[in-house]
């Protein structure tokens, strides 16, 4: 086998791609810090039990290996679960709510991701733990919008939904867990013919039928959709979900962010642990959502931590890609600003010149190869460095 090859699904990045990625990560980090969030780092791999049951990523979508004592380890497929574990083990006595941000890689494989062959994904995000108010949901959404704007995106939508809206209908129809999964996957594909068939086969009638039939095509304008369901004869759970969305939307309006907000009540939660307002960010420049987040009030119970929480994860590579595809591309320069060549006896002077330029924010290379003047000029030229000093 070729020694230079990397395994399928992972790869090297360098040069402009790294600068772009750093730009995205830095923009998000700055905004997280400005919102008063503190950093948390968790290990890249954990025991399988942390992610193990049906609450987060299906086990066949994670990358597993075995440690020397025979325990199964899993490369972190999701930050939120790791952070819940970390909070339960170290931070549960800290003043609430906790505001945490993170940045790192998640790893996923398996059939569901066959269309996205990548296995290593850079993610940044935040978790707001210990607050169960619409203000907390709105804060995380406002932070998301601010971070995307800071990174340089303009044309995007922040699409809201609520996991209890569908859950309420599913419970009202008394569907089994398997049937509920089938219905969720039909709604997720907006497969209206399939939804009608499903309703016929499960004798779903009345308001529930009406909503399921129309929901896959009735999305977009937040005021219109929420207004329609605010006065609809809904079951208790779905009605509470609409009330919840109304509260969050009104706060975002007060923040003057409504122009970024849309709604799709047929949006199916991407993680089973979501329990309330969920959202994702979409932009024309990316075929996949660039952020996803939501409320997960029960996830912590797995770690004996009963705290309501909400959060968001940013898909760094997709955001970088979207920025790269925009017309007014960022000016990312990989080359150094200056290069200094020196004679051996002038090395001290050369180093001081380099230091003084560097302290002014210039990117300066100090040659280490003792090149002749001719070789030096050629070297600067092929590196595309304009300012060349000879000391």
């Amino acid at each position, binding site marked *: 086998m070729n020694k230079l090859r990397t395994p399928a699904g992972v790869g090297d990045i360098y040069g402009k791609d790294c600068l772009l990625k750093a730009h995205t990560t830095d923009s998000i980090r700055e905004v997280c810090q400005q919102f008063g969030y503190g950093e948390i780092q968790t290990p890249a791999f954990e025991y399988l039990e942390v992610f193990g049951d049906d609450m987060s990523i299906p086990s066949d979508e994670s990358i597993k290996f075995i440690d020397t004592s025979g325990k199964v380890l899993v490369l972190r497929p999701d930050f939120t679960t790791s952070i819940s574990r970390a909070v339960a083990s170290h931070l549960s006595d800290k003043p609430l709510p906790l505001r945490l941000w993170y940045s790192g890689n998640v790893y996923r494989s398996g059939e569901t991701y066959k269309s996205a062959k990548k296995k290593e994904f850079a993610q940044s995000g935040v978790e707001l733990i210990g607050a169960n108010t619409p203000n907390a949901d709105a804060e995380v959404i406002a932070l998301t919008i601010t971070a995307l704007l800071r990174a340089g995106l303009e044309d995007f939508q922040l699409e809201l939904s609520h996991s209890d809206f569908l859950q309420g209908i599913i419970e009202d129809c008394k569907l089994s867990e398997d049937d509920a999964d089938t219905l969720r996957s039909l709604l997720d594909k*907006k497969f209206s013919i399939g939804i009608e068939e499903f309703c016929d086969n499960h004798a779903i009638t009345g308001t529930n039928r009406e909503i399921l039939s129309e929901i*896959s*095509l009735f999305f977009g304008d937040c005021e219109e959709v929420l207004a329609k369901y605010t006065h609809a004869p809904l079951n208790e759970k779905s009605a509470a979900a609409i009330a919840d969305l109304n509260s969050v939307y009104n706060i975002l309006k007060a923040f003057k962010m409504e122009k970024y907000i849309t709604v799709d009540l047929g949006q199916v939660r991407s993680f089973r642990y979501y329990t309330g307002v969920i959202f994702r960010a979409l932009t*024309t420049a990316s075929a*996949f959502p660039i952020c996803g987040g939501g409320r997960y009030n029960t996830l912590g119970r797995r770690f004996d931590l009963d705290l309501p929480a909400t959060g968001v994860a940013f898909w760094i590579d997709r955001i970088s890609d979207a920025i790269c595809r925009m017309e007014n591309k960022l000016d990312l320069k990989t080359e150094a600003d200056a290069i200094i060549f020196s004679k051996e006896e002038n090395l001290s002077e050369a180093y001081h010149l380099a230091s003084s330029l560097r302290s002014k924010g210039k990117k300066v290379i100090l040659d280490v190869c003792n090149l002749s003047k001719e070789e030096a000029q050629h070297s600067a030229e092929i590196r595309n460095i304009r300012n060349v000093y000879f000391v």
Partner: protein
Amino acid sequence: MKYLTIALAKGRLAELSVKILMDLGYDCGEILEKTRKLIFTDEEHKLKFILVKASDVPTYVEYGAADIGIVGRDTILEEGRNIYEMVDLKFGKCRMCVCGPASLKGKLGEHSPLRVASKYTNIAKDYFDSKDMPIELIKLNGSVELAPLTSLSDVIVDIVETGKTLYENGLDVLEEICPLSARIIVNRVSAKMERERITHIVGSMKAKVHLNDSNN
């Protein structure tokens, strides 16, 4: 205004789709002239039409290279892409079936594992998985009916339109997996970011085929 791109599955589905699109006033008749062009543009409506191999339509749509696609449900099921399947166009109707010698009717469970040949390996696997039946799967690329005749497999999973090819080769439909027809699929992000234009195109095509359907 940004161009919206519609991917059409080369062949009969593209021809039928073009007729509907032309009836709705879109300028895409050029597709019916047998040229070597792959991209056609309707400047007035800012639409681009691309002709691609059927099995690639869901891929173009998933990755957003096309916003909308028109393709058979067999391809959608087989490719399993992350897309919205919004409208049944009601043409290109046929069935996905398990076929084999009539003597096997009702006796598929007796073979363990059952040897299944198909172009549609994902559909075959999902179907027999859902029935908890162990199978041995053999991927073929054409003339699938030959497989049971040459003892390559016990049965096949394939599209049945009239059943003529089957009957002429002494085979029969043993089980129906699902009905098939042409569908409109939509990229998940485009559906949101270009909601009004896409809803308009998709909605008017839906209305048109349902009108045609009720007139027949």
